[in-house]
């Protein structure tokens, strides 16, 4: 899901930053226009997403 840079973004689109895997989910981090974090989670069923390595979860301190 390639996205345009924020400067050329139109309503309904935002800039993509990082993709990872968490269990069965693909994780996509997006920078919102006002700087707040937005994370999108979706079932990683497509082969392209399923092949991405899973990032290790950090343990609480």
């Amino acid at each position, binding site marked *: 899901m390639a996205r345009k840079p924020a400067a050329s973004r139109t309503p309904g689109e935002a800039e993509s930053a990082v993709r990872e895997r968490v269990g069965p989910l693909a994780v996509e981090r997006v920078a919102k226009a006002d700087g707040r974090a937005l994370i999108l989670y979706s079932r990683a069923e497509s082969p392209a997403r399923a092949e991405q390595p899973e990032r290790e979860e*950090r*343990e*609480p301190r």
Partner: protein
Amino acid sequence: VSELRFDELRGEQVVYAIHRQDRTFLPDREHCPLDPTKPGGPETEIPFPSFEIAVFDNRFPAFQAPGGAAEVVVYTDQHDGSFGALSPRRAEDLMWVWRHRYAELGAREDVDYVMIFENRGVEVGVTLHHPHGQIYGFPFLPPVPAAECAADERLRGCAPCELLRRELADGERLLIDGEDVVAYVPHAARWAYEAHIVMRAHRPSLLECEPRELRALAETLQSLARGYDALFERPFPYVMVVHQAPTAGDVGAAPPGAAERRGHLHVEFYPPLRTAEKLKFLAGSEQGAGTFISDTLPEETAVALRDAIARAS
């Protein structure tokens, strides 16, 4: 930015988040900020035409870095619905999202306790109807999880493990007796239809759960939520809170002599209804003395809830 003040008389923190006074309040469905952004329409919190589960920093946070965190978890891009009405797969996915947020927020130096919760219904102060929950990353250990740590000391071991053992032995208040997850109305329930959903094995947090257990947790939570709606044949308001191990190193570590860190994953529901139309209010005794006066017996409400869960399944 919120301000913390310590109430010396009660020995607890009070959070002043005065910017929240102007937060979005019950908008009509055409202006729901948790809907996906419609092509040509105003941008919502999620600037995409569709999504599965979305998490974002609360625009009106009670806590924010470097003094904690406040996130919103949107369960679906469908405006109408509820946690109980999600597909089983989506509910299971939500458990993974909760686990991921617990891990990330809990790893932060400014977060001592991660609280995942959902307020459902205007009766408990909901300001947006779109199915969603929230996560607070507290920069201190709040009184309730602190009391749970004290219960561990009092019972000389994991308190939820011991209370689960007692509930299983008694059996009268059990709602769902699953292989991995058990639901019951607790012996000393404060709310008429309060219920606790507890991992059968000792799991300090979602991080220690097997995928099978996360699935079972989602199934049990949904069974209870649907049972609640069947109880009075109306959308049932509740506060749902996920209780897990504190994430601050000093309080979250294993107590002396114990092999595992503190905490036992369980989810507590606090529904304000005591009948189909009557709400339980926190009044004199509850506010002034801290003692709940209940109009119902847990053994009797457990029977009603068991029947409702059976009707809804």
